[in-house]
């Protein structure tokens, strides 16, 4: 598709931006749900980077990895949400800062 080749670095820049946003979310968010969402964002940033790189080298590998990442993300989140339910049930809150029984 002509006219639509964005230089690799730009895409990488975007994806690293996404990455940073996700990380920021992890750092400032206290609600577990949002934390999981930030994780998603990060995962996708990586995925995007892969796709871009794959396109840049004209290889399918990029997309393959992208698939894998989706699966991984799914798995992570599945377990994550499972745990979230537990958290809600036992701690009666989703505020992660309150989950610090263990320290020192």
């Amino acid at each position, binding site marked *: 598709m002509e006219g639509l080749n964005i230089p690799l670095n730009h895409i990488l820049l975007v994806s690293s931006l996404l990455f940073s946003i996700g990380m920021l979310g*992890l750092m400032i968010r*206290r609600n577990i749900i949002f*934390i999981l969402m930030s994780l998603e964002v990060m995962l996708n940033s990586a995925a995007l980077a892969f796709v871009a790189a794959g396109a840049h080298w004209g290889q399918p590998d990029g997309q393959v990895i992208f698939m894998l990442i989706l699966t991984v993300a799914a798995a992570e989140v599945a377990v994550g949400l499972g745990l979230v339910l537990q958290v809600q049930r036992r701690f009666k809150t989703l505020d*992660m*800062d309150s989950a610090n029984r*263990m*320290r*020192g």
Partner: protein
Amino acid sequence: MADMIWLVPLIPLLSAIILMLGSAILPRLLIGLLGVGSVGLAALLTMLLGLEFLANPEPFQLSLWTWMQVGNFSPSIAFYFDGLTLVMMSVITGVGFLIHLFSTEFMEEDTSYARYFAYLNMFVAAMLVLVMADNLLLLYLGWEGVGVCSYLLVGFWYQDSANGQAARKAFVVTRIGDTAMALGLLLLFTELGTLDIQAMVGAANIEWQVGGTLPLIACLLLLGGAVGKSAQLPLHTWLPDAMAGPTPVSALIHAATMVTAGVYLIARTHGLFLLAPTAMMIVALVGLATLLMAAFTALMQTDIKRILAYSTISQIGYMFLALGVGAWTAGIFHLMTHAFFKALLFLGSGAIIHYLHHEHNIFKMGGLRTRMPVTFWSFMIGSAALAALPMTSGFFSKDQILLQAYQFSDIGPLLWFGGLLGALLTAIYSFRLVFVVFFGKANTEPEGDTGWRMAVPLITLCTLAMIGGYFIIPVADVFPVASGDHPAHWVEYVSISVPLLGVLLAYLIFQSRQLNVDRWVSSSVGQALRRFWLSGWGIDWLYDRAFVRPYYRISGLLKNEPIDAIYGLVVAINQTFNHWLVESQTGRMRWYVASMVLGLIVLLTLALQIPALQPTEGAS
């Protein structure tokens, strides 16, 4: 006979060991017999040896076994016997025997009778080793041995920590001297390659020339040892305190034998001192200074034993003076006579103390002339000899010393005058003692006079103190002969008359009271001087401030191990890190993420900052 010589020290040693092991079981009588008998036997053997030696005066050497053998350092357990040894041995065993005998009565009521005799016998053994030693290392063994025995005996009544204090003082102060001496030994061996006295002196005469530095240092180090043991300035302070021990002990150790060990050492190594004139000069001056200092102090004391102690110091001062001026024979002669009359005086005082409920203050005594005749006469004779009144033993020895001092190089007359002044003081304080204690009115009632076990030694010593001066000690071929010529006659007359003058003064002041000195004494200057001399010229005070207290303070400061603080610091550092880091484990997830992010950033910066491609190397 000669090869039996090793028995002489062995017998007392064995009896000492037996007494120690059997202290619990042996009956008192047997203990006494062992203690006295062993020394008696030793004395007998010595006598036989002496007779044989006088028959043919050949010094001989008996080597038992090699003590240790390292490289070329091979001192052996060996004895050397010559005139000097004979004199010393006779004094030790003879006087020792008498004093042992005396002790049997003096210590009668004491609970640890056996321990006493064990120590005393051990002392005799050690002292014999000291004088019989063929090499300086063995001599040092005896030297330290007598030191320990003296420590044990001074602190014999250990329940009173004051005695312990005195004993420790005695040991430590002498130990200072001993250390100097030990260094001397090290130097001598390193330089001369042997410690056998005869060989060493020989080597020294070959390798060193007169007036060299090495002989000077060596002699001064040896002198340090001598000064310590013989209680000369500046290490004399222990002797007066050492009077804490039982009086017979003072008689034996701190008057007759041990304290003269220093004199013996110098006499024995005179071959070295002859190489170091300066050292000899120092010896003479030390002697002079000590004898004057001690005489003045003795003048003021009120404790009968302290008076005798200071007089001992002063008399040994004479001996040092003699050695210093090269009057070897005179020095040793005085050593012997002094042993007689000073032992006599101590035993006499012992008798008094024993029968006067352990009273030490002479002004609480008095009028004992009639009540304790034996003691009185022994004191009379003893003091006469001490004051060197003509015809007594002390006269002969001291006279020789003074005369030879007069002839000594240019400062001779000065030394002579000093000695003379000393003699005057000696006469005064000794007869002050006599008059105060035995004349005048009685202040305390004695419980009778001496029993035979005390009387016999006293009487024997009396005779010795009288006739001792006529003995001829067989040291002619040990020492170089002194210059034969005599000084002007007036010198001799003066030397003879001064002691008499002293006695007269003492009589006028303390007996007839015709000469009243109270005005001087009570004057402020007099008082000051009196206090100054009474305190032994404040030397004790000085040492206390200069050494003892600082040592205590330093040791006290270090007590809790300052070094440990360093390691404590290390621990503290680790704990701080631990604290900080543990704080960082907040348990908050966001915080953990933050740390990861931080880490990531650090890694990225580190990874990007050094963009240098290493040359590829082999991988595994």
